[in-house]
């Protein structure tokens, strides 16, 4: 169907047209009275609510404050996953025995969705920072581990031979050969981990949390404040996009620095 590639300006124009249609239909549905305004506020209502939430607290905090507590857990959870997952993945990629011992455990745990950790996390760590952090960890850990492992396993064997020929110790080989060789794979894994971590976080906050965007949304649901619920959804989407854009930039920067891509 594509006769010719679209120019950037056209692509942007069509994108806005699609968004405009979406918002138009949404507004029409509400204004026409087809859907009660209480359940589907107009886009303008939602924007007004977001602006209001910037300063007026809801469920104990303003929207930026809720976002801040979400981010705090998020950073802790994802960092923990990276700090444990990446070294462990590299070690498993280097020491065959460790791989044989640990692989079956991870294979089994992999199929427990992050959300399925919620009851366990609540029992162990409660609703403070611990519970949600554990759930984020459960979401972000596998891609950190798997990508570091793959990176280490698929290092050019000639570089490993060169390293052994030079008399390099195991620890130094992991730190100076496997780790840098795996950086592209690890960074790609971190991006996946960041996305999964953010999704797991919001899921967790809907159930175990006393603050955060997810918590705000649950409280809003109880008060049948649909604009607040939708404001929360938009905040989650926007923050997720922002994280992804930043990580993409970071990834491109790292690859450019190593002369891998132009």
């Amino acid at each position, binding site marked *: 169907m594509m006769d010719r590639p679209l120019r950037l300006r056209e692509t942007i124009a069509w994108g806005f047209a699609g968004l405009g249609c979406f918002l138009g239909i949404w507004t029409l549905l509400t204004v026409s009275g087809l859907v009660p305004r209480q359940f589907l506020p107009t886009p303008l209502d939602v924007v007004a609510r977001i602006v209001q939430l910037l300063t007026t607290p809801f469920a104990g905090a303003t929207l930026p404050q809720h976002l801040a507590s979400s981010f705090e857990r998020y950073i802790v959870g994802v960092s923990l996953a990276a700090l444990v997952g990446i070294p462990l993945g590299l070690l498993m990629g280097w020491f065959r025995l460790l791989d044989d011992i640990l692989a079956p455990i991870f294979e089994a745990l992999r199929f427990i969705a992050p959300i399925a950790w919620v009851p366990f996390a609540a029992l162990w760590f409660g609703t403070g920072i611990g519970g949600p952090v554990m759930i984020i960890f459960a979401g972000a850990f596998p891609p950190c581990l798997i990508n570091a492992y793959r990176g280490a396993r698929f290092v050019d064997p000639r570089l490993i*031979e060169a390293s052994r020929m030079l008399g390099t110790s195991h620890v130094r080989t992991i730190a100076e050969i496997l780790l840098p060789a795996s950086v592209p794979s690890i960074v790609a894994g971190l991006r996946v981990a960041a996305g999964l971590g953010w999704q797991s976080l919001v899921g967790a906050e809907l159930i175990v949390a006393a603050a955060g965007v997810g918590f705000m949304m649950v409280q809003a649901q109880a008060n049948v404040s649909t604009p607040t619920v939708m404001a929360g959804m938009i905040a989650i989407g926007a923050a997720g996009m922002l994280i992804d854009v930043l990580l993409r930039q970071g990834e491109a920067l790292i690859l450019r620095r190593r002369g891998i891509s132009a």
Partner: protein
Amino acid sequence: MGSIRFDNVSKIFGRNSAGIKAIDDINLEIAEREFVAIVGPSGCGKTTCLRIVAGFEQPTSGTVSVSGKQVQGPGPERAVVFQHFALFPWKTVRQNLDLGLRNKNLPKSQRDELIASALRLMNLESHADAFPHQLSGGMQQRVAIARAYVLDPEVLLMDEPFGALDAQTRVAMQEELVRLTRVNPRTVLFITHSVEEAVYLADRVVIMTRRPGRIKEVLDIKSARNAENWNRFQKIEDVMDQESFIHLRTHVWRSLREEKPDNT
């Protein structure tokens, strides 16, 4: 220090019954500071011979020893120059050279000194802080040779080191290697499938048979080189003009030609 000895060395890849016999009953002694080149048809196991000396492969039977000690695994006293250079792309030239020295736990001042002299030896001083991908193929191979030399190894193992270079760079590197081994002699085991390269560089040329690789013939080049004093020439083409060179080269060619695929 620096002699290499193959005693009844055979190598079978895969399970013994269905495995492929790469080399069969290799017996060879390389003296200290001798330059030996192995030539043979592709797949004859010449690289396997080198990899066993390097410690990357274990022989299925027989033993290989270097300086009288049986080879158990890779080590810096047996430095390898790989066909595809195998430089660490995220390390600068200097850092590539430094890794082996750091592994020896030498103090920083001594390492800097050794690196500086290796860089000078290979004309790389102005590229010390470049990354490998910023250098041409010939330059990268100079770095790889410098990385091997800086270790002050007992033997130098070169696995088709110039095979990935273009013809002109290759000739320049061959001349460079001759100069280098004159200034700083080492025991060298050199794998190549270029007959000219082998005859030009080596003291002795080992000709191998088709798989399973056996030693077919060992040819003395050194006496001809000394008799006709090849060393007075700077350029490879002048050496290649010598009657003795042509004679030896033709001899190796004929010997290799006999190794037809169906003629084992």
